[in-house]
């Protein structure tokens, strides 16, 4: 049975201030704040951000959705964006590593597109600054969808309905690689994780998540040090860190070879709907949330590039279970995604 709200809050605050669950090596900022102050950091934004040069219109979003689900955007006409970013798998594919053109296995796991409207940089290694810059990457990559931008435009221009829809959505711009990217980006920005039990708890419903999950929230922000990178409502700092995952992949270091701290560094993923998005890490090498926490508990591979925020944590089994209970509260029950009828 749940205790009363004030009692729960006071217990959690006491845990924070006395360090009962947090141990000695936790964040000073979290140590000095109450649970209510911590919760304030996790409130959802009221609006979705769109860039000035590609502002939201319903026509653009609907066009982008058609393109997203259209397999004609691949050389084989068999693979759409949604093949890997599958809404049935929380906009991932559930595989350790993505499958590309000709079912060839790629080097990294498919990242979810949930909440990419708030992303500062795209791809696991951050090589694209905007969604518009990212959108054509997988389409034109020989390893992924393998369709040239010229063939992409020609195919779309052969479909009268697309010609009409582009004219409506981007009246002065015609069908070009840029407008395809803009429409895809507009749709992707509308893919936002729904209200989860955690959000209800943040909003004041004390019984929305269990006491165990609430202890997990405190641990997340203190002893376990997760919030150092998995920050705010989307549980990411949009940053790049080497978190000690065993890998030969240089990640962001491939693009910034002179920066020691960027070797083996990958983007901090959102934790929204995380328990529906196994396996984990950039290479899908960790099968379960428990194993992810076990990896962080050890500190992973100690190498010069490893983030100074990663260190052995000495978590107890109960603490690990509390963290998992908390992470599960980040999953929303969203309405089904309706597949669009594609123009012929």
């Amino acid at each position, binding site marked *: 049975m749940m205790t009363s709200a004030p009692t729960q809050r006071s217990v959690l605050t006491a845990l924070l201030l006395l360090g009962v669950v947090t141990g000695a090596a936790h964040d000073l900022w979290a140590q000095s704040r109450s649970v209510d102050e911590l919760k304030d950091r996790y409130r959802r934004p009221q609006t979705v951000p769109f860039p000035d040069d590609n502002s939201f219109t319903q026509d653009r979003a609907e066009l982008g959705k058609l393109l997203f689900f259209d397999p004609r955007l691949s050389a084989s006409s068999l693979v759409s964006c949604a093949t890997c970013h599958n809404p049935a798998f929380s906009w991932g594919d559930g595989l350790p590593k993505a499958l590309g053109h000709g079912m060839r296995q790629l080097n990294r796991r498919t990242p979810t597109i949930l909440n990419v409207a708030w992303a500062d940089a795209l791809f696991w290694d*951050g090589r694209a600054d905007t969604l518009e810059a990212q959108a054509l990457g997988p389409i034109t990559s020989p390893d992924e969808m393998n369709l040239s931008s010229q063939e992409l435009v020609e195919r779309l221009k052969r479909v009268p309905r697309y010609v009409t829809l582009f004219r409506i959505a981007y009246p002065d711009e015609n069908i070009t690689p840029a407008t395809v990217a803009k429409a895809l980006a507009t749709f992707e920005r509308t893919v936002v994780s729904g209200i989860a039990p955690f959000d209800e708890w943040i909003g004041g419903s004390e019984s929305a998540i269990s006491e165990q999950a609430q202890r997990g929230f405190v641990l997340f922000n203190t002893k376990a040090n997760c919030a150092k990178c998995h920050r705010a409502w989307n549980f990411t*700092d949009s*940053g*790049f*860190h080497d978190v000690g995952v065993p890998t030969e992949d240089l990640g*962001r270091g491939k693009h*910034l070879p002179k*920066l020691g*701290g960027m070797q083996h560094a990958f983007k901090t993923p959102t934790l929204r709907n995380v328990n529906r998005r196994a396996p984990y890490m950039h290479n899908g090498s960790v099968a379960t949330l428990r194993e992810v926490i076990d990896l962080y508990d050890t500190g992973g591979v100690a190498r010069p590039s490893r*983030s100074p925020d990663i260190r052995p944590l000495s978590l107890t089994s109960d603490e690990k279970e509390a963290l998992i209970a908390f992470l599960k509260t980040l999953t929303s029950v969203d309405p089904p995604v309706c597949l669009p009828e594609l123009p012929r």
Partner: protein
Amino acid sequence: MRSAVGVICAALMVTTPAAGADVVVVQRNKTFAPSEVQVKVGDRVVFANEDEVTHNVYSPTPGLEFQIRSQQPGQSDAVSFSKPGALEVRCAIHPKMTMRVTVTR
């Protein structure tokens, strides 16, 4: 302030005890403030991490590169400039953090 030894600089960017003036640039809420500064050759820019997260300041500008490795909250590092030019300064961890340093004679 972290010692000069803690700062890794390219050949033309040597961290030294203060020879000229210091200009302070703070990092707060994943933003540099101010977003643009002008200094003279020999001056230092002190990058102060007043954020709650680790930063990694560097400049990719050809011929004027420098980097400060992981900079913890509360830590400050100084970079001095020995030749003129316009530098783009970024955080390697947070790509949207950018600013400009203009060095004049």
